[in-house]
């Protein structure tokens, strides 16, 4: 790769959405991501596909965008969306005066709300606090961020789009007021290369300010840290929101068998401020208690944080004051040709953001092609025949999970499973079979166990990697797919990644699991000793 018409920086929802959009319009594009895909805010959030109701009062335009995109994503990404609906709940701690304007604002934005009897709400959600005052239904949904992005990436690939993960742009080449290309470092091999381009797209989210800095531009992108807690239980069927002005800890989002509680909002001084202070977790628990009184009895699976790429624009402001809308900048206005940036926004509207940005790219390149990303599904539904065949090699529930995760690659994995003498589940919590792991491991973008985790959910369930990681590394040795690092190091790196999200919530049942994990990997397998005693 030495030239691309368009180079996109950033492998989050926006960047990969742009890659798909441009590729579908026939524009040759390559995406560069410094880490794994969806390593930033695209995966470090609660996984709520907003109905927009949350923003209705303060930012009605953003709310309208949300509901429109919500409906689009249900259609094009049905395998990634769990249509679970949402409740907006007025608790005894919330101001009842907010209720009326909120209902009106939702109606204005086109968001359907329906008040239901509190008794009925408690029947539907028995873990909800008995003291709630009013409950409304809204069309919220849960969405699997990793999966949605991956399906976008696969769709982009089918149209010729290229994606290079672990490729960091360290310098941008300019000549005569025009961007000519980018200098790239492969962070796995250490190799450096240069890619020339006609147009550079900066879609680096919280990092977009850093990218702009490389060409001497100062933009008001403000990383804002949000902490989230994942519980090892699904104690609510629906998404629960507090009916009040958006605040910390007021959203519960169920996904599969877990529930995520979010979010806090703190100014962050760097885009990768992913550390989770325990005080954030305790604060979330305190606030979450208003909706779910038993919250402290559930095991915390892990805690994580991401940074919202807030764009304060010229008006300034911080945290929740800043609009969730997005902003597209053509740096021609700053005197630099050949580079555009997209700032702000949120996951729910990633497709719309990609569409608008791609429209601008087309205009600049003089290409006339309409956006089709809202019409064409990300992946094709697997045929009934294929699903029937797959049942021979996967447990019944695992068939749907694998089909949804793998999308277009599902037929390949079914063939792989058929060719294996047996296809055991390596990750039992998330039902990931050996064939799926082998397939994902052999993808060129996979360089570590974390890459496998992101695409398959291996290690994200109850055991948090305690049992499945040894199996995965064993199975990969057997099919001779080596990682760049030796097995002990790869495993240690993976466990260390998991540990980051476990240790801020080190109490209760979770502490037991952590002692078990250390016991297996240190006391029994002596991974810590082996790290020093083996030679590479």
């Amino acid at each position, binding site marked *: 790769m030495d030239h691309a018409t368009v180079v996109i920086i950033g492998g989050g929802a926006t960047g990969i959405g742009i890659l798909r959009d441009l590729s579908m319009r026939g524009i040759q594009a390559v995406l560069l991501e410094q880490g794994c895909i969806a390593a930033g805010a695209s995966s470090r959030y609660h996984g709520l596909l907003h109905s927009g109701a949350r923003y209705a009062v303060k930012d009605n335009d953003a709310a309208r965008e949300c509901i429109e995109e919500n409906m689009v994503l249900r259609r094009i990404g049905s395998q990634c969306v769990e249509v679970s609906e949402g409740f907006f709940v007025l608790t005894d701690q919330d101001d009842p005066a907010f209720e009326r304007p909120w209902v009106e604002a939702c109606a204005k934005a086109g968001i359907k709300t329906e008040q239901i009897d509190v008794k009925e709400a408690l029947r539907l959600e028995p873990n909800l606090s008995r003291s709630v005052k009013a409950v409304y239904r809204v069309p919220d949904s849960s969405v699997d961020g990793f999966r949605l992005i991956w399906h976008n990436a696969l769709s982009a690939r089918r149209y010729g789009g290229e994606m290079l993960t672990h490729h960091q742009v360290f310098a941008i080449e300019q000549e005569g007021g025009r961007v000519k290309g980018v200098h790239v470092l492969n962070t796995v091999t250490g190799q450096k290369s240069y890619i020339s381009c006609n147009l550079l797209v900066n879609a680096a989210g919280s990092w977009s300010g850093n990218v702009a800095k490389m060409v001497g531009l100062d933009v008001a992108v403000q990383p804002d840290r949000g902490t989230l807690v994942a519980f090892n239980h699904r104690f609510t069927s629906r998404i629960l929101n507090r009916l009040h002005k958006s605040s910390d800890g007021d959203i519960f989002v169920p996904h599969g068998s877990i529930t995520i509680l979010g979010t806090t909002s703190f100014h962050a001084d760097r885009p990768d401020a992913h550390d989770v*202070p*325990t*005080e954030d977790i*305790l604060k979330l628990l305190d606030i979450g208690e208003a909706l779910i009184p038993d919250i402290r009895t559930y095991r915390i699976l892990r805690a994580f944080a991401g940074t919202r790429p807030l764009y304060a624009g010229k008006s300034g402001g911080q945290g929740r004051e800043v609009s969730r809308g997005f902003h597209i900048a053509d740096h021609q206005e700053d005197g630099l040709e050949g580079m555009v940036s997209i700032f702000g926004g949120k996951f729910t509207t990633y497709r719309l953001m990609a569409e608008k940005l791609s429209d601008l790219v087309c205009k600049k390149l003089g290409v006339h092609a309409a956006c089709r990303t809202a019409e064409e599904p990300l992946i094709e539904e697997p045929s009934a025949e294929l699903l029937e065949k797959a049942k021979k090699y*996967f*447990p019944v529930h695992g068939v749907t999970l694998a089909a949804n995760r793998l999308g277009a690659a599902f037929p390949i994995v079914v063939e792989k499973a058929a060719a294996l*003498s*047996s*296809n*055991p*589940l*390596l990750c*039992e919590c998330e039902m990931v079979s050996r064939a799926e792991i082998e397939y994902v491991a052999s993808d060129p973008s996979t360089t570590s166990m974390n890459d496998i985790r992101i695409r398959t959910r291996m290690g994200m369930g109850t055991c948090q990697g305690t*049992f499945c990681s*040894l*199996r995965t*590394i*064993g*199975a990969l*040795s*057997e099919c*001779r797919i080596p990682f760049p690092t*030796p*097995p*002990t190091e790869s*495993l*240690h790196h993976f*466990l*260390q990644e998991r*540990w*980051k999200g476990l*240790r*801020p*919530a*080190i*109490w*209760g049942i979770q*502490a*037991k699991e*952590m*002692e*078990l*994990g*250390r*016991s*297996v*990997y*240190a*006391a*029994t*397998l*002596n*991974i*810590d*000793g*082996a790290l020093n*005693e*083996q*030679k*590479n």
Partner: protein
Amino acid sequence: MSKKTDIIVVGSGLAGLTAALSARASGRQVLLITHGVGSLAVSSGCIDVLGYHNGCPVQDPIADLPQLNPEHPYSLAGAERVEKAIDWLQSLCLAGGLNMQKNLSRRNHELITVMGTLKPSYLCPESFCTECFAKARRAAVVSFENMKDVHPLLIIDQLHRYARFADMEFMEAMLPCPIDQSHRNVTPLDVARFVDTPEGLEWLRLSLEPYAKLYPILLMPPVLGVKNSQKVWGTLCDVLKVRIVEMVSIPPGVAGLRLREVLRNALNEAGITMIENALAVRAVADDKKCLSVVTSGAGGEHSWEASQFIIATGGILGGGVATSPGKAWETIFNIPIKAPENPQEWSSTEIFGRSFFSQMGVRVNADLKAIDDSGAVLYENVRFAGRTIGGYDYASEKSGHGTALVTGMLAGELAGKE
């Protein structure tokens, strides 16, 4: 319901079982109360004494004991106790038909794990000893279809990364799975149970035969039975004219269950009553004297009176220590464990690093009685054993069963003397 006995032991991990046996040796009546099966069900079944000290490998663990900090259970018990406890367990096991061995040069064994890593341990079943690799330089690495935790090619790749094994010839030997379980995990325990049956043993012999003709050593997951492993190992080695080496495996702990079986039999022979499915929830005490332990089980609550008590309920994993944000306590007597208020300070950023979390437990004196900050004894007739005691990180120093055995035996002996 209440019935008084001389000594009550709570917990049936290695510490509880050895405490009960050593207390019984004094001639007193002993009652063992337990909720679950104890840590042996998830253990490697090998007695690690000390593998690392401050992160450095220990060659001779007995010689290195005096260097440990004064709060370490070994320091409290005294180094000479350690050797005594090891010898005692070794003879107990031998009497029960399980030959546990020290390394010939009285150093740590280097056992092979199912991840192909080497792990230091002091006393292990004969079938785990790896000294044979010094003479024979070729081995077949055996596993079974569907045994997800054991992959010969990983083990071979990993062993070749150690100087000691770098030039050794290994061959993968994948045996068919003898148990029909589609989509399911087959664990070493499943196979070991099958090998306990006559047809299972015959099946294994036939399956290993071709490899035994080619290689002098067969390296295997611990599948040589749960009940008669010593006999199975001896028989197979004899008839196949080969040396079989079992690998240390992750839970379920086949070798741990073998050890448990031996100790349970010894308990029965010694006339120790064991009450199962009884969770000790609290104690009744009169000032510094414990009167009874209250358990909760299927039939409701029961109170158990005794003159002496030994608490071997495990650590965080076992349930002997409980935690909430910024707080930790022992679960029967509610003894507070001094902990940093911010849970962030409980653990190290590195998963295997030094931390409060990994060492948290009850503070005891040389008499194994719980003490407060000033060193005053909390309960005159209550002793603690095993992981309930704090002050050491068994996972990183590889001392888990060693500390359990030493404190268990000592607690039983001391209680028997009172």
